[in-house]
Each structure stands twice: as C-alpha cells, then as structure tokens.
C-alpha cells in the first residue's frame, strides 16, 4: 500500500462529548462493522473503560475507506485513554498519529480535558480537525463553541465540522476531512526498523499484545526484535491488524499501525513509548519522547481482616499482570498490621485499583490517606523519596520538596470566585485566567499535588454545582516548608494517621484532626488522650473521656433472647473496629483523615 493512502488519526474529547459514538459511526458507514454488530459502542465508553480497568484502554482499528473520488484509503483510528492520570500514554498515542479529531460538545463547549488533550496534540505536531458534536441538541450553540475553541486553543474553528454522531449527520464530511487534512505518514521502508510502542494489553492465552506504529522499516513474523529502552530482545510470534478483531498479517511496514506478539509474559516487561528495532539491523537512535512512568500517588492498602493478607498479595499480583503502572511493596503498620504501599499514576488510577480489588477479589480493604512522593535532600546531599509520611524523619533532611501540577479549570463565570478561593486555600498560584466566551472561563493554577489528592475534585464539583471541569499535568518538584504531623492516641503515635503538611498550616490541621477524631472514637474503658504533634512537640490535644455507663435496664417480661441479641450486635460492632494498642478505632476514623475542610 502506498503511504499516501494511509491516514493515522485519533479522537480527542472531554468525557461524554461523544468520542465513542462518533467512532462507532465512522466504523459503521465505512462498513468496518456491520450495523448488526453495532449494538454497543465498539471503542470504550467511560463506563466500559472503568469496567475493564485501565490498561485495556487503547484500541487501534483499521478502516478501509473509499473516497468519493474513487481512491481507496486505509485509516487507522487509534483510541486514546480518557483521563488525566494517563497523560503520558495519551501523548504516546498521539505520537503514533498524524492527525486528531478534536470533538467538542455543541452545548457544553470546551472543557478542561479538551484543552489538555488538544495541547498534547499540538505539541505532537498533529493536524487538528475541530468537530462540533451533538448539534441535534436543542441547547446546541455551535457558533459559541467555535469561538471557545479559537480563544482557548488558538485553532481556527470557522471550518469546524458540525456533526451529530447520534444520527450520523456530518460523519461523511469527517471522513473526507481526514483524507484532506491529515497528512499521510512519512517513513522509509528501507531504513532499519523503528516502531513506537503506544500501548499493550495482556491476553491470558497469548501473553502481552504490544500495540505499535511502525515509523521506519518493516516487521514480520519470525523477526528478532529489540526494545531499545529496556534492551530486551525477543522473536516475533505473530503480527497483525485490528479490523476491529485481531487479524494476523504477513508484515506491517512504515506508516502502518498494528500489533506484535513476541513472547512477553507481563505488561511490565514492555514500556509504553519504547522503540522496537531489529535485533540485527539496529536503528541508531530511538524515537524521541520515551520516559519511565513513575507513580505519583501512594496509599497504604490493608485488609480489614488480617487473614486476608495473602489474598490481597495475590490479587495485587494479578492486577499488575495487566497494569504496568501499578506498583506495590509490603508495608507494616503498627496500627493496621500487614499491608502494601501501593503506587498509582493518580487518583482515578487509585480508585480503580481499590475498586477492582474489592469487587473482583471480594476483599474488604482499608486505605490510608493518599500521599504524594516527597523528595528529601539530605545534609549529605543524597536524595530520598518518601512515599509514606510515617517514614519521614526531619533529622538530616536539609530540604523537602513536593510534586507540583499545572492545573487547567474550565468554568462558567459565576464560579470563578469560589474556584479562586478553593485554589488559594490549597496553596495554589494562579498562572492564567482567560474569558473564552460570555460564560466560559479558563483558569490555570500551579498547585501542590498533595493538595489535590485528598478531596480537591469533590470540593471543586460541589462549589461549582458540577459545572467546572478539571485537568492537570505534572510540573516537577518544588521546595516547600513542610513538617510531619503525627497523631498520638493514648500517648502512642498511630503511623497510619501521620501526614506531611505545610508548616504554617500544621497547627490548624492538627487541631481540626484531633477534634474530629474525638467525635469519631467511641468512649473506651480508659480515658484516651488524642494529641497532634510536630517533631515530638504537642500542638493540640483532645480527650475521649472514659466510658462511664453501658448497661441495659432489664429483661422485660423475661425476654432474654432480645438482650442476648443486643449484646451480640455490640460484639459484632467491636469486631469491625481496629484495635491499636489499648484503643479501639472505628474504620471511619481512617477515612476522616482524608477530609480537609477549608
């Protein structure tokens, strides 16, 4: 196939703006899939994506398209993961394309994710085709949305294609625009092999299926290949395309998109962004843009019932088979016993993993407050990464740094004040504010990641009645004045309650925490002092008074059974609490630590 007849593109959109529905229409009108099979969205909808977890996320579908002028084209539609946690994966997917459809909801307009993904596409030099979807909605306002696209992204939107993916209106124009606007791939089939790994998935029977875009050269069954970043070599067992089912092929060549199966057993043995080359005829330079993805958010995950520890270990191991970004190592907490410190790409990733563990493996879990990875520069100039606040020891640490993010928030104008207040309360620094249209404002903030891992998103949604959207990218480490806040129960520190907090907020945070814990921790046989401390100095104290009275009046009319059942209930309630030394702590207490009030 002539490279001039190939078009590689993706669709980028905010959640629910119609990415999957549009993809379905394109597959349907090109006959890639019969309408009989079109009952469900072929590319992942958000729910399905959540159902499937996070790694079975991108798909690449080969579409044959006969243009009105009679020429035949091959389109490779590559799906992108839909969330901020996977920015890096999105950028690698974009790097496998020459063009992108930028889909924006005709009623909702530009949202935070639209902007974040569009910027990634611009950085990757993609041709961008603005598509305004859902024009069949009564509240559709394509002219306003065009202005928003131009204002926020600097992309000419006058020619934006008006589409109703639901009815199919405008889908034909989209296909023609892909031919016209998206440049054909460049590349030289005669050069040594260079193929970009943009995703992978795990198949129980075949092992890891690697998704690639061949940039130069070609690849066929039996080839010895090498992953340039990892340095691993293996033999190609099968190659092929998705149309949309996996269909094996003789070879794939420069400009094409497909899959490779090469005896790889775990997804962590393959890195997204890596370059595949020939083991014998090696390329000199790998493709640009590869980086090692590091987890940014950490949480201790513990079984409520200590006997479930081996089950939790097994479940995490199984999830990791298909989720290269998940990492975990054993951790022991004085308060919670044996568990694992797990690293995640971000909050969604953490939620998905926890939900899958609980749902698919039927585990009852207790997760500690999420923490970020702090970087400690010691007096001897060595560095240490602190993933668990209880590991932090201020001695010998010269400087403590924390990860920052660059956040984009899109909001109707009336909520600007509330958002600014929220971000300032979270140590945010405003970098930009732009009024895109009468009622659409883009605000950019630099924020410490630690400030958003708690309940930032919930707060943002509640303060804007759900209208604001939010996206972010990591922007490196910055030095901050931070201290470790410890919580002591009955004079003993409870490691699961420790947190690293800004020094100037430590006092207030400590005071709020001990007050809240006093309300949650039930009265016990002994008086329980609850203290907040910084480096051994107590900054706040509350006391849970000793329980004085717990007695039931009498067995009315000889109803002993009822009395016994009440006691049984009381005993069950006790079992659901964590015993830490002499103190019984209800599970809510561990969750309460997550909430930060303004």
């Amino acid at each position, binding site marked *: 196939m002539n490279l001039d007849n190939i078009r590689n593109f993706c669709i980028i959109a905010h959640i629910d703006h119609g990415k999957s529905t549009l993809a379905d229409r394109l597959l349907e009108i090109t006959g890639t899939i019969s309408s009989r099979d079109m009952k469900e969205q072929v590319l992942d909808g958000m729910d399905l994506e959540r159902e499937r977890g996070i790694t079975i996320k991108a798909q690449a579908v080969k579409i044959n398209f006969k243009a009105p002028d009679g020429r035949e084209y091959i389109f490779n539609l590559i799906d992108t993961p839909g969330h901020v946690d996977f920015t890096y994966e999105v950028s690698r997917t974009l790097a496998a394309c020459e063009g992108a459809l930028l889909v924006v909801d005709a009623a909702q307009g530009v949202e935070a994710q639209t902007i974040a993904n569009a910027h990634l596409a611009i950085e990757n030099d993609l041709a961008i085709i603005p598509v305004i979807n859902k024009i069949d909605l009564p509240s559709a306002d394509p002219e306003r949305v065009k202005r928003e696209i131009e204002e926020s992204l600097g992309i000419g939107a006058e020619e934006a294609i008006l589409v109703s993916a639901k009815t199919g209106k405008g889908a034909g124009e989209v296909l023609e625009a892909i031919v016209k606007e998206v440049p054909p791939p460049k590349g030289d089939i005669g050069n040594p092999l260079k193929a970009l790994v943009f995703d992978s998935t795990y198949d129980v029977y075949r092992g890891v299926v690697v998704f690639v875009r061949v940039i130069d050269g070609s690849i066929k069954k039996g080839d010895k290949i090498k992953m340039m970043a990892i340095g691993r070599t293996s033999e190609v067992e099968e190659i092929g395309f998705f149309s949309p089912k996996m269909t094996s092929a003789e070879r794939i060549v420069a400009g094409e998109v497909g899959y490779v199966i090469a005896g790889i057993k775990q997804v962590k043995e393959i890195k997204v962004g890596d370059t595949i080359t020939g083991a014998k005829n090696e390329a000199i330079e790998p493709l640009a843009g590869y980086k090692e993805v590091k987890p940014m958010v950490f949480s201790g995950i513990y079984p409520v019932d200590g006997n479930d520890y081996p089950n939790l270990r097994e479940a995490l191991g199984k999830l990791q088979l298909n989720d290269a970004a998940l990492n975990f190592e054993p951790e022991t907490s004085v308060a919670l016993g044996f568990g694992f410190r797990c690293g995640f790409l971000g909050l969604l990733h953490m939620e998905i993993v926890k939900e899958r563990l609980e749902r698919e493996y039927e585990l009852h879990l207790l997760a500690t407050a999420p923490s970020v990875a702090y970087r400690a520069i010691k007096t001897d100039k060595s560095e240490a990464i602190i993933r668990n606040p209880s590991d932090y020891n201020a001695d010998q640490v010269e400087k403590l740094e924390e990860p920052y993010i660059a956040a984009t928030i899109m909001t109707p104008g009336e909520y600007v004040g509330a958002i600014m207040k929220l971000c300032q309360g979270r140590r945010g620094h405003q970098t930009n504010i732009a009024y895109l249209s009468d009622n659409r404002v883009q605000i950019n903030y630099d924020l410490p990641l630690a400030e958003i891992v708690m309940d930032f998103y919930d707060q943002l949604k509640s303060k804007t009645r759900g209208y604001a959207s939010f996206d972010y990218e990591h922007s490196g480490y910055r030095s901050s004045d931070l201290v470790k806040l410890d919580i002591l129960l009955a004079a003993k520190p409870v490691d699961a309650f420790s947190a690293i907090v800004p020094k100037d907020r430590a006092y207030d945070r400590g005071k709020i925490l001990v007050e809240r814990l006093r309300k949650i921790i039930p009265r016990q*046989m002994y008086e329980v002092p609850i203290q907040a401390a910084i480096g051994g100095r107590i900054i706040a104290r509350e006391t849970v008074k000793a*329980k*004085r*009275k*717990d007695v039931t009046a009498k067995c009315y*009319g000889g109803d*002993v*059974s009822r009395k016994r059942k009440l006691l049984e209930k009381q005993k069950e309630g006790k079992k659901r609490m964590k015993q830490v030394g002499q103190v019984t702590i209800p599970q809510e207490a561990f969750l309460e630590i997550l909430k930060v009030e303004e």
Partner: protein
Amino acid sequence: MFGLYLHIPFCRSRCSYCGFNSYAGLEERYTSYFEALLTEIEYQLSTEDWPVVSSVFFGGGNPAILGGKRLSLLLGALRKSFRLSPTAEVTTELNPEDATPELLKSLKSAGFNRLSLGWQTLNGDGLVSLKRRHNRQQAIDSLTAARGAGFDNVNIDMIFGLPNQTITEWRDDLATLASLNPDHLSLYSLSLEPGTELLRQVEAGKTELPPVDDVAHMYEIAIEVLRKSGFDHYEISNFAKDGHACSHNLNCWHGGEYLGIGAGAHSHLKGKRSWRVNDPIEYIVRSRENDTIAGNEVLDKGRKLGERIILGLRLCDGIDIGELEAEYGVNISDIYGDAIRDLKQKGLLVAGSRLALTEKGLLLANEAMVAFV
C-alpha cells in the same frame, strides 16, 4: 423455681418512653382477650405435669385495666391449672391512678401478695414529659392505700435520666422514696426505644436528655443513698429491704424456668426459649387453636453457658462458679479465662469462688457481658 407470667397488653394511653408490647384504644377487645387468657390457662392443664409454682407476675401494659374481678378470676384459673406454692410470690403491676381501696381490697382477697407500683418519677414536670396519667400526690397516696389494704411487699418502679432531670431533683426523689419506706425499688435508666414518642422528640431536637456522665452519677448516687437507707442492692436495677428481693425476677436471672401467657409473653422451659405473638388481636384468634407461639430458640451448650453467665452477672453477688461448672461439666477458666483476666484488669469483674461485677462493672455491665456472648 418455676414462675408464671401473665401479660395484659393494654393501656389507656401510651407513655412517651414506652417501647413495651402494649396498646391503647383496644377497649372493645378486653373481654375477648380476657377469655383468650382463660383459654390458654385452661389449656395448660392438659399439656404437661408442671412443677410447683413459686411466683406469679401480672405485667403489662396495665393489668388493672381489666378490673379487679377479672384479675381475680385469672389468678383463680391459674390456681386450677397449676400448683401454686402456699408461699408463692404473687405480684401485679399497678399504676397509681388505679390504686383505689376497692381494687386493692379485691386484689388482696384474690391472693395477690405483692404490688409493683409504676411511679417512674416524683417530679411533676417529669411525669408530664413521660405522659403518665398520675401526679406526684397520687403516687404517694397509692403506697399509703396499698399499705392500708394490707400489702406488706410493695415495689416501686422508678426511671432516672429523664429529659431535663437534674442530679438535685433525682436526689430529692431518692430522699422521698427512702422516707416512704417501700419494700423494694426498681430503678431503671431511661433508654430510648424504637418507635417511641420520646425517641422522635430527641431526634427532632425538641427534647434533651441529661449527659451520660450525669446519668451515670445518678446511678451511683442511688446506690449510695439507698444503701444508707437500709436497702440491699441485689441486682443491677433492684434494691430490696428485709428479704423482699423479687423472687420472680431472681428466678429469671438464675436461669430458671417460667411460662409466659398472653400476647408477647416469653417462656423458658426445658432449655428452650419461646415467645408468643405480640399482636393482642392475633393472639385472641390464635388462642382458640392453642397456637400462640410466634418463635423459639434452643441454644447450644456453649451459648447457653454464656447466657447463664450474662444473666448471673446482673446479680450483685454474681455467680457461683463451682455450681455452674458442676451443672455444665466444664471448667470456666478453660473457656473464659482470657476474657475474665481482661475484665478483671479493667476493673469490671471480681473472680474468686464467685464471678461478679464490681461497682464500676455494674455501670459497664454490657462491656463485660459482651465477652460471654
């Protein structure tokens, strides 16, 4: 020991705190319910060879609502179906507004020898907030009337921890009680029962209960005051003078057998606990078929032992460990050794030849009992 309990589930009106099986507004059912009780009592004659009855207790609701004549007939029917010991304790509950000389006289001549008067509080505001139908003076007069009718074994039911009740008011109540010299006192700490008006009021923020620490203190004060006045504190909630401990309730706490008759009445017979249907109308209908049992449970030996300990711990002198071990053929410390050590260490329990709650343990009885369920 073998007790009989008879339940009369009717009241003229509901008290705000009451979560018992009792109904107001069913006046037209009194006669048929009375007849149902008679049917059920007569039916027992044919069922088995009952042991000698050591106590009879008429409770409610308000038994007096049926009138002295019917209560006398019911007691007479019991005498026909069962063998009452000549020394049997025969109690009926009685509200002050019903304690007329006529009624008291008829109860006395029918053979009732013990009264349990439902005073609940001596504070006028307290009586109003509980929606009782009597006032302070009627309460005091009811004791005088009982004495006048020849009752020399009278209990008074009191509640503490009432809405807005202060420690001073409670002390006043206790001083008055001591001076009136009843033979027995039952002091209950107010608990908010599901479905009661009081619970709704508290949840709606319209009524406030005293702080739990104050209520605990009220209990401690009661123990102190009543001991000084010559009462024997023999059970968590009960105080008696001169050997007037309630033998009907003692039997229950000792794990003894009893037969309950009437709507919602509980029985404990041959190791099985059973209960009858709560609804008086359903009870009336089902009594015709001798089919009033709503449910039952039989505990395995281990849980039965735990239940015995729980019940026994309600008594201030606790449980005779040796006796219990002999009865169950086990070694208590093999089974509960850790729990007992823990509770001793917490200061809730003393364990020698007997197992008993400490004074602190009385207030935290549930905390200790949980270890044995």
